[in-house]
């Protein structure tokens, strides 16, 4: 739509945090009815830029202008004032939802739309407007449901309705598909296209190349805070975009052919946990020299499964056997140490919280799981020299970017923290590697590194359990994939026999039995 009027203009935005420049003279403009994809690695400055647009941050230099509602002339927004952005018609859907869980959907949408000190709230009028809005946009939610009872997809719809209720003309979505199933993502993009056709200008932030190419009109790429490309989607290719994001040629590691070995780990009828996150009757067999992928939308029991295999969650029922050794019994004793000593390596989902002790040094974090081993202590006294020496070797081997082995682990970026976790767990030559969302939140370079390490472990003969929500990652790395839904694990099937839509349907809870029944 070349003739459409410009509704948003970012001019020479620069933002520094100390000596780090998060945004460097970035200029962008957006036209009415246009869908712009903002692409970039983690730390490229996408979220910072959008937070400046929305007034959460104040830019050091540069201006944000939004078209005036009546005249259409571009008017500069006062910096650092979210309510000014809201009034000008900028709506934002954050990656972490900004909803009060104890309130209804309606209350969350009405919050802040009326003067605080009015004696009553005009709920009936608001509800009528929302019902109309839901009909036109196709975004339906139960307005009276408490947010805590809604699914992730429904919460996202509430967030979009929040913006539409305020007559947003520019809608910003930060990584909107990160928490959705493939089918939910498709529905979301259809909705966005409908909204754009009605004149809404949309910016969505993403690092998934497929959806960027499928669903945008124009693509802007940020790298290290600089705008490196602003081009129409037509004619853009995945490879070209990936190279723009990373700034160098990208090689995606692929899985070499390798015959699976003997059975390493078996779970039979395993149940653990309680409530929504519980797992029930899980059967699983992991061979040496293979990567077993576990697909599923987050919150379907993956976390409990990971905790079970880490020794942090007792086995309630069933058995857990590693090389014919029954570990189920020791699990009742709740010992992570037993599992580590039996040969499990744990790459936890939340690496900041469960992967490191932030206040401790890199060297200490590297030694922490084997602190009782003779190479780390003698008569209960730590061998600082040996620990530091091994840490320096690991920093070199794993390319951990830091100021030395004594630096506090919390000062590192997510990718480098993950390298600490990898170095700690994989150096011990584990039999089973449990990788929970190992590349979540990492940039392309760090992700490639994680993948290479997992494939190395596989080549060495370890069995790897890869829990992920990223289907591309699962299909590229896994020999077999099983889907987990509501705490039940489907059968693991060879990756070659599966495709994305089958996996997506299973992730949404359509099991084979039902499919087979329909086919018959």
């Amino acid at each position: 739509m070349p003739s459409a009027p410009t509704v948003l203009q970012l001019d020479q935005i620069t933002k520094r945090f100390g000596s780090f420049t998060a945004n460097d003279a970035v200029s962008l403009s957006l036209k009415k009815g246009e869908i712009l994809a903002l692409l970039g690695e983690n730390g490229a400055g996408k979220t910072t830029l959008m937070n400046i647009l929305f007034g959460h941050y104040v830019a050091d230099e540069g201006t944000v202008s939004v078209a005036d509602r009546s005249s259409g002339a571009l008017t500069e927004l006062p910096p650092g004032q979210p309510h000014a952005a809201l009034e000008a018609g900028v709506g934002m859907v954050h990656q972490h939802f900004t909803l009060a869980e104890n309130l209804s959907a309606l209350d969350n949408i009405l919050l802040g739309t009326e003067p605080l000190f009015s004696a009553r709230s005009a709920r009936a009028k608001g509800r009528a407007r929302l019902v109309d809005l839901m009909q036109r946009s196709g975004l339906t939610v139960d307005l009276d449901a408490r947010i805590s009872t809604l699914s992730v997809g429904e919460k996202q719809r509430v967030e979009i309705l929040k913006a539409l209720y305020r007559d947003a003309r520019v809608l910003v979505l930060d990584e909107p598909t990160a928490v959705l199933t493939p089918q939910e993502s498709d529905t979301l993009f259809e909705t966005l296209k409908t909204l754009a056709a009605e004149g809404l200008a949309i910016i969505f932030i993403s690092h998934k190349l497929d959806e960027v190419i499928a669903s945008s009109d124009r693509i802007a790429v940020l790298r290290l805070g600089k705008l490196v490309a602003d081009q129409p989607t037509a004619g853009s290719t995945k490879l070209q975009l990936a190279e723009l994001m990373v700034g160098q040629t990208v090689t995606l590691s692929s899985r070499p052919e390798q015959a699976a070995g003997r059975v390493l780990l078996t779970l039979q009828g395993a149940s653990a946990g309680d409530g929504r996150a519980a797992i029930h009757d899980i059967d699983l067999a992991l061979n040496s020299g293979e990567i077993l992928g576990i697909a599923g939308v987050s919150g379907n029991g993956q976390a409990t499964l990971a905790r079970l295999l880490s020794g942090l969650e007792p086995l309630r029922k069933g058995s857990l056997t590693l090389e014919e050794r029954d570990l189920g019994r020791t699990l009742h004793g709740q010992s992570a140490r037993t599992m580590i000593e039996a040969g499990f390596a744990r790459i936890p989902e939340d690496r900041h919280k469960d992967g490191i002790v932030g206040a401790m040094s890199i060297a200490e974090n590297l030694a922490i799981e084997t602190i009782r081993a003779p190479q780390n202590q003698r008569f209960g006294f730590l061998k600082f020299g040996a620990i530091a020496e091994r840490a320096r070797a690991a920093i070199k081997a794993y390319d951990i970017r830091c100021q030395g082995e004594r630096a506090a682990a919390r000062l590192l970026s997510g990718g480098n923290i993950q390298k600490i976790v990898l170095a700690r767990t994989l150096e011990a030559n584990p039999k089973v590697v449990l990788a929970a969302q190992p590349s979540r939140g990492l940039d392309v370079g760090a992700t490639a590194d994680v993948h290479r390490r997992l494939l190395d472990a596989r080549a060495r003969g370890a069995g790897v359990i890869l829990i992920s929500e990223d289907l591309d990652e699962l299909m590229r790395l896994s020999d077999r994939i099983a889907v987990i839904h509501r705490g039940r694990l489907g059968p693991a099937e060879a990756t070659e026999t599966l495709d994305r839509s089958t996996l997506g349907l299973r992730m949404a809870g359509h099991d084979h039995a039902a499919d087979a029944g329909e086919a018959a």
Partner: protein
Amino acid sequence: MDFLDIFLNANFWAASLRIATPLIFGVIGALVCERAGVLNLGIEGIFTAGAMAGWMAVWLGAGLWGGVAVAALAGAFFGLIHAILTVPLGLSQHVSGIGVTLFATSLSYFVYRTALPDVSSPPRIEPFKPLDIPGLSDLPFIGPALFQQTALTFLALFVVAATAFVLYRTPLGLAIRAVGDNPSAVESQGLSVYGIRIGAVVAGSALMALGGAFLTMSAFDAFFFGMVNGRGWICIALTVFASWRPGKALLGALLFGAFDAFQVRLQTDVGSFIPGQVFLMMPYILSIAALILVARKADYPRALLVPYFRGQR
């Protein structure tokens, strides 16, 4: 048995309501603060400050309602200190609250001692008198049981209704409930997290101070050291018992008042063979028991104790 007769005595019900009144102010004040996400352990000291300031104002010549206003202002002042320390500065709410309690208590004693250096028995004021409501107060049993209270007791009951209305029926209440659950929900809708939290803590602290003022201006007619005697802490427990709901808060305060009134009367009945301290313990033991039953299911405001800093998630 004698102790059943206690319940048939209008005097017992009147005493329950009277004992409950300062707790009603306190628990509603604590509830307003905590609904906005700020625990206010300054409550014990704010009670003392309210008691002292209200009494002192009347003793110096102000009217009774003037004294109430001075007490509320004193509470708001200490609430503001707590709010500034915990909301924009994001300091530990426990540490700041205990600090405010120590500061407000000591300052009250200090002012009292400085103003009255040589007094051995505390000077008295003319306190609030029980209201005589035409018709209602003369009803048999119900009249003396419920309608012979002072104006402050009726104000406390009104405060419960008004707080429930504001919290559940107005945009302001919506914002307070939201900010205690997820401050970024409030910020993303263009409202000020700091403004709402500071406002709630100041208003809640003013209510707490009225609980103190009731002690010196209605229940008694003078200010003594140690007269608050843990009532503030009881209010903090009652807030959990009430699941942060004004109606249940009123119920909890009345229950506690009833326990207290009951044990006093039971003492005179059977005090000859059971030591009196056992009865003094009773309301506290019962409130702990009630908490154990209720608190497991308590629906804590999710952002309680969590400071909010702009631009962080």
